[in-house]
């Protein structure tokens, strides 16, 4: 098989995967324009859910709050996580394996249990509930993901590059800033995207720790299922995805984090 055919096949495969990843997103968006409250087919076009949404200040406030919390979580978790990853990768020291293994409990133990544990503990130490507690919980849940992803990127790092820079007289701060950081930037960005996703979809911690009346979008969705949520949820989700997509494509247009080549 010629390389050209393989490349073409590869691109088709990528397209198929993207289609698979977006299929439910498309259905979600599609249903936000469907008249039926119970997601019934056949499809009947309607803008009623967007009209309802415009008058639903609760959902809009919750969505805004979720985005803000996710942004703060992303910034903190990415900074702390990257620092920890560099230490875990760069140095050999006693207890390193244990520190790495400790990243798994938050991922392996279902959020419900971790969330309940946080609830009891935060009350026990008098931290109570409120947005700061929610952010503390979100950052903690996002950290392991950031560390695992950034470390995976660091594992591909060629240490001789640093050596070379140092032998040319660069001090360690310069080495970090000019050599190490650019190299792991794609990893940091991936970690940040994960952190945002973890926070933005996290409901257990927010559910237990947010103040009544100050809930986040996932909490609103999860508590709505008993009675049933309406396609208004699809409408707000569609708006959020569209905005994120626009922001990301603009970011991709003006940056070069994908690598050097």
């Amino acid at each position: 098989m010629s390389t050209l055919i393989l490349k073409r096949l590869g691109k088709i495969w990528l397209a198929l995967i993207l289609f698979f990843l977006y299929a439910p997103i498309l259905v979600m968006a599609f249903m936000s324009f469907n008249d039926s409250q119970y997601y019934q087919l056949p499809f009947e076009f309607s803008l009623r859910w967007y009209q309802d949404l415009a008058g639903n200040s609760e959902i809009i406030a919750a969505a805004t709050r979720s985005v803000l919390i996710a942004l703060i979580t992303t910034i903190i978790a990415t900074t702390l996580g990257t620092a920890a990853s560099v230490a875990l990768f760069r140095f050999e020291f006693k207890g390193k394996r244990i520190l790495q293994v400790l990243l798994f409990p938050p991922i392996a133990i279902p959020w419900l249990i971790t969330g309940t544990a946080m609830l009891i503990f935060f009350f026990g130490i008098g931290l109570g509930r409120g947005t700061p507690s929610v952010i503390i919980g979100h950052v903690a849940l996002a950290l392991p993901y950031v560390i695992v992803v950034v470390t995976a990127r660091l594992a591909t790092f060629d240490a001789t590059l640093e050596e070379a820079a140092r032998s040319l007289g660069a001090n360690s701060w310069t080495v970090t800033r000019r050599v190490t950081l650019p190299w792991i930037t794609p990893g940091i960005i991936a970690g940040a995207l994960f952190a945002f996703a973890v926070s933005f979809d996290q409901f257990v911690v927010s559910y237990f720790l947010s103040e009544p009346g100050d809930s986040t979008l996932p909490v609103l969705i999860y508590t709505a299922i008993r009675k049933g949520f309406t396609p208004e949820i699809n409408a707000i989700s569609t708006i959020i995805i569209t905005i994120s997509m626009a922001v990301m494509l603009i970011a991709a247009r003006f940056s070069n984090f994908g690598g050097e080549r």
Partner: protein
Amino acid sequence: MSNMLVKQDRLRIFGLLSPAYLWLTVAIFLPLSAMFYFSFLSEVPFGDAEWNFTTDNYRAFFETPTYAILLWKSIKLGLMVTLTSVLIGFPCAYVLAKTIQGRSREALFLLVILPFWSNSLVRIFSWAIVLRGNGVLDRTLNAILPFELDINLMFSTPAIVIGLVHSYLPYVILTAYLALQAIDDSLIDAARSMGAGKITILRRIILPLSLPGLLAGAVLIFVPVVGSFMEPRILGGRVGTYYGTVIEDQFVAVFNWPLGAALSFILLAVVLVILALASPILRKAQT
């Protein structure tokens, strides 16, 4: 040279690690220790409840066959989802890292993770609309194909696997991409110029060098899938009972946190044992 640097290094390690691990300690490790303590109690020590120390909660796992059966079922599900994700995600990451050039690569990289930013419950319900009989998939295929097909994947194990693979595929694509993208093209060119075939290059250069990323992705998929309960419950219907659902019940249906906590820590222990058993094999493959 290392002797002089040791102290400085130690400080640096401490400075880099302590913020993250301090945060984790306060928000996760200490709360989970409280849960671990609960798992050895007969009752949750609220108010004036009477309680005593016991290992009954751990013994229950061995005395009630249901738990072991479901844990095994969950592990199989975890392996199936991980394997599927790796098999379909790796080629995708490869194309993204090595075939696509320029700015469109950055855009595609971002597009892969974007579905993650939608609410998981909304995503699962959307899959339900796609998969059910007379749903989107059924209608679309019957509109395209010349013959009649009756597709109803809803409430089956394939539906659970589809939903979970969809949720976790971006992990492996991204971690594999990050590793693949770091492989120097000149290395591949050099191998090729020395007469190495495509298979040889894949087996001897690309796979070993991208293994750290692939493994990180696999672990990030396997670990949470074993404890998942939402996707199985909604997409699996009658066959959707897994270990995670049983743990959830101890908190939601009855007030038995000690048993729920014990079952969770057994899950954690089993997952860690599996990872530990797998690591020598994987490390060998890496060299």
